[in-house]
Every structure is written in C-alpha cells, then in structure tokens.
C-alpha cells in the first residue's frame, strides 16, 4: 500500500522569486531584500527534504441495508483510521461510490488530519438501484503540512464492498407478442390450428388424423367422423435488445435516472414476464461492449441475464466514453449488422431504447425489414424547459412517428411514468 508519490509543484516560481529578490537587492543596494531571497531558498530546501507521509491507513465501510429495494435510501458509513505512529497532517478521501448509485444526502468525500490512532468517519446516503453494485476502492491523498509532496493511494474497504441484490426477473411484465412463426410448444396461443388446449374448430376427418382428436360423440350422434382442432400454443424465441450506448445515457434532470437505466428496467421486467410464460428469451445490449445472450430457458439462463443487466448499468455509467471499442468505429450503425448475424430466424425482437438518435431507428427498421416482428418500448428522456430540449423532444417524436410508420408498434413510457404500469397497460399503438 505505497501508492504513487509526487511533488505537487505548488511552489513553482519560488526560485525565480528568490533570484529576482536577490538580484534587485544587489542592483539597488538594498540589503534588506537579501533575507527575502533567503526565505524563498529556505522554503525550497524544505520542499526538497520533506518526506511524503506514510500510508498507514485502515478503512472500514458499513451500509445500513446490504440488500435494499430499488429506491430505498441506504446510509453508508466509512471509517478511516491512522494505524501508524506519525500524524497525517493532510488527508483527503473520496469513496468509490458505485457509478450507478446516486448520493442523495451528505458527501462521499472528506478532508481531515489524523493523529496516530485517530479515526475520522464519513457518512452519506445513496439511493439504491436494482442490481448488484460494487464499491470501488476509496482514493486517498496524503500530503505534508504545507502540501508540497503528496502520496496517492487506493484503499479497499475490508467489508461491505457490494450493495443490492440481482434484479428479480420472476414477477415481470408481459407484453402481447406479435409473432406467428413459433415452432416450439409453449403457452403463447398463436393463430393457426394444431395441438393445444383452446378449442378452435371442428373439421372433416382426414386420413391420418390421430384417433385421440376424433370427436367420438359426434360420431355416435351422427355417424360421421370429425376431427377437433385446437389453437396451437407455442413458445417464442424473444430477443430483448437494450440500447445501452453512451448516447442513450441521457436523463431529464442531472440527477435523474438515465434512459439506459430505464431501458434496462424495461428489459428486466419483460424478461421476467416472458420467462414466466415459458418463452425462450435472449438479451442483446448495444452498449460500448456489445453483449449477446442467445435465447434460452432455465435458471442458469436467468442468472446469466440477471448478471448481464446489472453489469450493463455499471458499465454505461462508469465509462460513458466507450474508449474506442466496438461501436466507436461506426456510430451511425448502432450494431445493426452485428445483431442481424446473431438473431435466430424465428425470433421476435423487442427493442428498449429512448430513441435519441437516428442510428437506432436504422437498426429497428433494418431488423423489421428482415421480416422479424419488432416492437419498441421507449422511455422518454426529453423535457421542455429550454428551446434546445424542446427541439430534442420534437425530434424524438418525429423518430417515433417514423418507426410507427414502418409498421413497428411503440410503447412510449413518459418521463415520470412508472415502467411496470406503462407495460401493464400497454396496448400497442401503431
């Protein structure tokens, strides 16, 4: 735990002052200026010989509720102790708050000085979000009394390094699916006839019809052979495409939930609902690191999806710049080709995006053009308090209209609207 040591260069220019004062003192025959130069030299000597404070620190973190419900306020308490035998005159500490959590009360930073054995406590409150959030190591800056040399270290707390639990997917929301090209047995009633539970029609017996489907009562009553047909019930592969690109990380207010977080909430809710209906659900995220989870079923699959959702929140909020990865090459593409390569032929696609740029419209239209049934759920991040923002809102509405015009149904979730409620009441509007 030695960290990096550097001079702060805060007395840069002092040597120039020393030489200037000395020279002027000589030139103007003013001996009184020479001690001024000597003062500067003495300070420079101090800056040369002073040693950086040793990083003798122990950090303890505690949270009031390790498994909070999303939206709960959780108090985080951080205690730092000087376990060395020297005083630390200048100590600045900034806690590594998980990027996706918002601090609602207090401050996650502290400036203090610590005697040997002394402790300082820092307390702040965060608003819990869904998913698991890991605390980053706290950054500590130690300086000497005059602040000319500093040591920077990162300290991991020994406890409470995580907060929250993986998002629950089992009590999610259902959306009416559009697909008819389902192949596997499931619970979705589709148009067509075949095996199933829901009565559809009775038709004339044809050779080869299974005996169990023959309407024997009718045979007894009228002497004719007839076959009963049911609505077939199918399981659909559904791919939830979540727009986690940095460009979508916009929020109506500086401390509000970003559209990416809301899009992920939509996807979580839908995943739960669809999985409960026995559909095979896959997930694709369009973020800086595109991730693909092929449609599947079962607990292990749900677990993977859950991890994916909580990881995506962290990723987007921590490095929004994308750092020149995959997407940076062509921002207008938004991953259309990438998605097209992976989509199973029969899959239905639900895109969860704030629709804040044209690239994602291109993606939606491109997927729809393949004949894949696409629907869009769009959390609205726009507001109307300035002219520019109003323009952004109109542009988004325009995009919504474009998407609808291409035959893709859209659920528009308003800024203050509850996602679960919006999905529950969603009638697809074309």
């Amino acid at each position, binding site marked *: 735990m030695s960290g990096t*040591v550097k*001079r702060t260069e*805060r*007395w840069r*220019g*002092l*040597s120039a*002052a*020393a*030489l*200037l*004062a*000395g020279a*002027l*003192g*000589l030139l*103007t025959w*003013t*001996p*009184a*200026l*020479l*001690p*001024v*130069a*000597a*003062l*500067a*030299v*003495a*300070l*420079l*000597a*101090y*800056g*040369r010989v002073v040693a*950086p404070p040793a990083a003798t620190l122990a950090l303890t973190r505690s949270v009031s509720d390790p498994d909070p419900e999303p939206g709960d306020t959780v108090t985080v308490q951080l205690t730092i102790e000087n376990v060395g035998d020297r005083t630390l*005159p*200048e*100590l*600045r500490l*900034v806690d590594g708050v998980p990027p996706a959590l918002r*601090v609602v009360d*207090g*401050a*996650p*930073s*502290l*400036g*203090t*000085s610590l005697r040997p054995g002394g402790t*300082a406590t*820092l307390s702040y409150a965060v608003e819990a979000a869904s998913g698991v959030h890991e605390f980053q190591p706290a950054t500590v*800056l130690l*300086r*000497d*009394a*005059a*602040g000319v040399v500093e040591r920077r270290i990162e300290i991991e707390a020994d406890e409470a390094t995580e907060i929250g639990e993986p998002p629950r997917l089992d009590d999610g929301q259902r959306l009416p699916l559009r697909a008819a090209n389902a192949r596997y047995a499931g619970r979705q009633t589709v148009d067509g006839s075949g095996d199933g539970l829901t009565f559809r029609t009775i038709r004339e017996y044809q050779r080869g019809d299974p005996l169990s489907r023959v309407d024997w009562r009718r045979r007894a009553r009228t002497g004719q052979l007839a076959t009963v047909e049911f609505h077939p019930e199918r399981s659909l592969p559904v791919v939830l495409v979540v727009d986690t690109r940095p460009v979508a990380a916009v929020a109506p207010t500086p401390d509000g939930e970003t559209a990416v977080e809301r899009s992920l909430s939509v996807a979580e809710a839908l995943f739960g609902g669809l999985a409960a209906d026995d559909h095979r659900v896959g997930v694709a995220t369009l973020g800086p690191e595109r991730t693909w989870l092929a449609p599947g079923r079962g607990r292990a699959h749900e677990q993977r999806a859950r991890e994916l959702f909580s990881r995506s929140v962290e990723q987007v909020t921590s490095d929004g710049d994308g750092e020149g990865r995959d997407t940076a090459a062509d921002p207008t593409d938004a991953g259309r080709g990438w998605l097209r390569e992976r989509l199973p032929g029969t899959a239905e696609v639900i895109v969860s995006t704030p629709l804040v740029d044209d690239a994602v419209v291109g993606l939606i239209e491109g997927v729809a053009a393949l004949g894949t049934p696409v629907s869009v759920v769009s959390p609205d991040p726009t507001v109307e308090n300035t002219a520019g923002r109003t323009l952004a809102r109109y542009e988004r509405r325009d995009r919504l209209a474009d998407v609808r015009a291409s035959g893709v149904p859209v659920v528009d979730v308003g800024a203050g609207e509850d996602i679960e409620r919006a999905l529950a009441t969603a009638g697809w509007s074309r």
Partner: protein
Amino acid sequence: MVPVKPGRLAAGYATGAAVVAFVLAGVGALATVLGALGLIGIAVGAFRGRAGLVTVGSLGQFGAIVTGGVAGAGAPQLVAAGGAVVVAWTVGRTATELRAALDTAAESRRLEATHAAGTSAVTLAAAGIAIAPTVVSVEATPVGVALLLVGGICLTAALTLTADGPM
C-alpha cells in the same frame, strides 16, 4: 454543525495572511497599490476557486515587497511580509483545490486548519533561518559577498533543478 463549504476556512486564512503582507509591505505609494491589488487577487481567487488569480495576486504582493524594500523597509519587516505572502499563496491555492476536489457538503475544516497551521509553521521556521544572518553582524568583505552570492545562486539552482528527481 454549521455547514461550511470546503475551502472557505482556508480562503479566509489566506486572505488574512494577505492582509498582513499588505500592511507590512505597504511602504510608499507604489508598494501600497501593488499590495492592495495583490490582496484583492488573493481574496477573490481563494473564495471564487481561481488558482491562477491567487498566484497573480501573490505576484502583485511580491512586487509590493520588492518596491517596499527599495523604498527603505527593514529586513525583518520584508521577511515577515514575504512569509505572509507565501502562506497566503499556499493556503489560498489549497482552498481552490479543495473546492474542486471535494463535494460541497464534505467536511474539511480539520484539514484546512491543520494545513494553515502547518504552512505557517514551516514558513515561520524558514523566515527564522532567513533573518538569522542579519542579527549576527559581521564586517562584510568583497570576497565574502561574492562567495555568498555564488553559493546562494548554486543552492537555489540545485534545489530547483533536482526537485523532480527520484525519491
């Protein structure tokens, strides 16, 4: 506890030190004007979080010390003024840094108080070393003055040029 934004205490201390420097160096009209401008620069810079303004203000006060010295101020007075400027400069810039580095609700008074006291102590010690030769009166010889001058320049250069060497 009354909430105090980070850097406020340090900014107040820096302004106080700048006032001391202004009073001590204000010998003659030019020195007073330079000192006043420097004082304003340090105060505004420290409270508004502009490190550049603090440095420019300190430079103004340094100019006041030099002109004050030329105008005939005594060595102890000038050294004290110089020390006060260094304290104002250092603590004032710490105030701007804290303002930028910590959240507005963060607690940092202890750090600021320790830093102000520590910087003052270091400067006081340096000032003591600087003023010591003037107390001891020795008959000056031309060779002695020349040697002292060369030694002073070498020491200053050495302290400056090797400052970023390995530690």
